[in-house]
């Protein structure tokens, strides 16, 4: 039988991989994909909790996260497109994203 811990560790791994990607990638599109990966890790965590608590709230939450992720993707990609029109690059070093 697979324990809850296994799922949670898998979720934590995916979340951390995504977070590392946000810092190491230089391409705005891939950075955003890494953030999507983090959201997926959260979804896995929620679904696992939901199953082990035997309570469907987690599923509803995942449903909402998917909705928001879709909305966010639409907005985020249109931001990237509007930036690309002014300056044809998606490299975050060229658009001084990393400057504090």
């Amino acid at each position: 039988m697979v324990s809850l811990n296994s799922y949670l560790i898998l979720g934590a791994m995916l979340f951390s991989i995504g977070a590392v990607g946000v810092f190491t990638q230089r391409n705005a599109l891939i950075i955003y994909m890494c953030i999507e990966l983090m959201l997926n890790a959260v979804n896995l965590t929620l679904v696992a909790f939901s199953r082990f608590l035997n309570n469907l709230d987690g599923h509803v939450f995942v449903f909402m996260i998917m909705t928001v992720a879709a909305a966010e993707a639409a907005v985020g990609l249109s931001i990237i497109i509007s930036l690309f029109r002014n300056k044809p690059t998606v490299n975050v070093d060229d658009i001084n994203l990393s400057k504090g």
Partner: protein
Amino acid sequence: MEQVMSTINLSAIYPEIILTCFSLLILLMQSFSTPRFKEYYGYVSLVGVLAALAFVVMEPSSFFAQTVVYSFNDMWVVDNYARFFKLIFLLGTGLTILISMKYLEDEAMQYGEYFALILFATIGMMIMASAGELITLFLGLELMSLSLYVLAGYTRVRMVSNEAALKYFILGSFATGFLLYGIALIYGSTGTTSIRAVAASVGKYGLYSPGLVMGMAMLVVAFGFKAALVPFHMWTPDVYEGAPAPITAFMSAGPKAAAFAAFARVFMEGLPALQMEWTWLIWIMAALTMTIGNVIALVQDNIKRMLAYSSIAHAGYVLVAFLAAGELGISSVLYYLLTYTFMNIGAFAIITALSGRGEPRVFVRDYQGLGFQHPFAAVAMSLFLFSLAGIPPTGGFMGKFYIFSAAVKEGYIGLAVIGVVNSVVSVYYYLRVTVAMYMEEPSSVREAEAAAPIFSPALVIAIFISAYGVLSLGLFPSSYVAIVKQSFLALQ
């Protein structure tokens, strides 16, 4: 099949429904009416804000009745705490709409969607203030953030605006990841997402699960990002600088207050049992936020950037009051956020008027000699800057006074001292602008290229309202304090 009917009290969400209807109305007007009506979109949205304001005060019962209404299976709470925050949001939105109208015309931007998005963002904030449950809270926060990402990049032809939007978006959705992971851990530890049920569950079992503490830490990261607290403030200066000036005004007031509203509700209502854990964390963040914000603001020449760092510092002061908790602490949070809304939007109203098409004139040197050319603007700007610096008799002084006395009363004397020292430091960079306005001659370059500042009637009204707010909060604090105290009581 059994029917599960949720307990619905529709009157509890009237203000939000009204705002949604008005934003839909504006979108429809944009599509179906002739272009010459476009000047009226701003007024239409203003009517929506005023109607929502009336319903916040009146429905589902009068503000002074102090009732707490739960609706939608405890997902929605209308107490005076939420209502007071909604008043702050609507005030900020109303002032922003007033200062935006002329700006949109000058920058040749789209009208309809702009106001619709501002209303959507306001709905998101109001949801955050009233959410009694974490999924609802998350959706409110996202509604607010998505609208703000778009608004930050609204002047699409300007590169800085695009960059601001992208930076805000990427770091914002990164923070959302942490928020969600935090909520997931809290859900896993307590089996519920309702804030009250979380508190009950934590209280009942005396639960001290590491998962819960970890979840709480993740929420601190997420809210810290939304309220621009050090060390999660990196996005603030660039986004404030790049966004259109009225949107910067908007972002610095409402969304920040909304983040604090949700922060306080989750931590004080949901996780009071973990107070030992979060107290020291917030202590450090408050000290860092005040100090770093003020120190970096000292060397800024761009006035929008300067006010961005100043807004970080002000979030630090609010955090001090937040930490002091208790009646005095929370009421001084409310008092300060109200004052901050007036003084900051007031200052940005002047910046908007002076910045010129494409916002070339946003540097301190552009304010040289303003006191002689436009005495009215200079006096108003000085008033707002004095208030931000915390000089009597302005609202900013009273707000800081309440915050630091709350901190001292609760025994956070070290933090209060750091705060007072910081306020003194901050006087320097606020006064620098005033000195430039009154004691320096305008440079000849500026004279040559200077276009007259644009003071449209709506903008002047916004400045007057802000000035009135700043002065009355400073001179007659007692009536406001009475209202603020009533708003606090509801949280208990």
